[in-house]
């Protein structure tokens, strides 16, 4: 009996230790990744943006995307219009990873795009942070976040898939797909006088309900110029004239 107790105690200690080690590993992994991601203070990138949202018909937009850490982002299109989701969080990885002290939970391993990825959850200790929880799928070999799922206090959940090729050193993606929820919008038909020969009465318009539409934004980054020291004034101009 005493020997069985000993064995159980040892097993319990091993299991507990493995959890502690795993948590420590996950925590180290998170902080190392965050350091790598935050090493990019600013960038300028030639981009192609494809917005695919049910009630929005927008052609493929080509332009230049400017980013300055922590949260400034602007797209410029040679005098053309640019459209970016109006979220408190912007669409860079650096902004979807919690800052400050973070509690890291090891979720385990999975396979993503043929690669073995380590999944962790990061919960910021700062209760005022807009980010409530971020789940990150990490390629440990290259130290890259392949997918993130960030739950925010004010902006719902933002999912992001990232593909890397040329800028692995900076953890900057070549292609990002963002999945987001967009509220349906309606304008009175008396105002717009739509051309729709086969129009039928819209029940949603009558009930005034706003449906949520699923949408994706796909950004292809063609060329980066990293840490060139972009000024704040660049982000102040370019608002709607």
């Amino acid at each position, binding site marked *: 009996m005493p020997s069985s107790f000993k064995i159980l105690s040892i097993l319990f200690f091993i299991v507990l230790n493995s959890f502690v080690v795993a948590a420590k590993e996950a925590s180290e992994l998170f902080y190392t990744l965050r350091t790598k991601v935050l090493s990019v203070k600013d960038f300028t990138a030639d981009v192609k943006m494809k917005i695919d949202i049910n009630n929005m018909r927008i*052609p493929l937009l080509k332009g230049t995307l400017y980013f300055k850490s922590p949260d400034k982002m602007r*797209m410029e299109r040679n005098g053309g*219009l640019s*459209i970016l989701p109006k979220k408190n969080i912007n669409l860079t990885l650096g902004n979807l990873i919690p800052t400050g002290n973070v509690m890291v939970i090891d979720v385990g391993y999975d396979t993503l795009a043929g690669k073995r990825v380590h999944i962790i959850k990061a919960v910021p200790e700062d209760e005022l942070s807009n980010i409530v929880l971020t789940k990150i799928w990490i390629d440990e070999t290259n130290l890259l976040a392949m997918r993130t799922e960030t739950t925010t206090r004010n902006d719902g959940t933002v999912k992001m898939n990232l593909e890397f090729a040329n800028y692995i050193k900076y953890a900057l993606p070549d292609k990002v797909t963002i999945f987001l929820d967009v*509220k*349906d*919008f309606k304008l009175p038909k008396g105002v*717009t006088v739509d051309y729709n020969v086969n129009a*039928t009465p*819209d029940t949603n318009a009558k009930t005034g309900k706003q449906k949520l539409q699923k949408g994706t934004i796909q950004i292809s980054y063609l060329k980066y110029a990293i840490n060139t020291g972009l000024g704040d004034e660049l982000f102040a101009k370019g608002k709607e004239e």
Partner: protein
Amino acid sequence: MIQLLKIELYKIFKRPRTYISFGLITAITFLIQLAMLTDGKGFLGFVMQGINEQFDIQGHILNGYLVTYIILQSLLVQIPLLVALVAGDALAGEANLGTLRLLLTMPISRAKIVLMKFLSSFIYTVLLILWLALVALFLSLLLFGTGDMVNMKSDAFIMILKDDIMWRYFMAFAFAVLAMTTIASLSLFLSAFADNSIGPIMATMGVVVVLTILSNLEIPLFNIIRPYLFTTHMVGWKGFFDDPVPFAAIGRSALVMAFYTIGFLTATIVYFNKKDIKS
């Protein structure tokens, strides 16, 4: 025939009231452009409220292309009246002045007279739309510049790149000519029944207003007749600003209006041929 057409055009353009139409279009266009210059942002803020809540749109939204679209939308009701002012007067005006009998003493068939009246009204309509294109599109581009265009439908947001817009306006103005030609033929038809021009002009506007209400009222009862009303198809020019452009629907709308135009013109000829001219 050409001589008769020249006479008809001379009759139209010698009247000062013909130029009222051109003046009105210019005045309304200026007023809308002025309003957009002073408070365009406020107007856009209201129209794009649903989009602005969720998206940050940067760039020159209030450009000449968008202002032209707003002008065309605002002139939907007025232009038929301006067309009716001339086409409604074509036969009834002659009857009122007592010159119709004199006109019919010429060795030309009544059908040809009606056709020349229609053709001169058509030329006036084309000139009116060309003038609208000049003051609305080109002046707006001069005042507000170019840029990508946004088009707000009741349930969709459409963005068109600036290099892809101009052809849409050319097609839209061509479509507007067709739509207004239908109004001209209706007005000419009503003109054949009257002995003064006020009646056909008012009757044309009455028909347009009532049918436009029926076209836009979202009541299931009217769903059956809506596709057959020419007023439903008159806004077909807007289809060119959709993405993708509904060419099949626009083609159907053009056919419906061509059908109405031919129908009204044929009915006018038939009635005018049998009409007992007393003045």
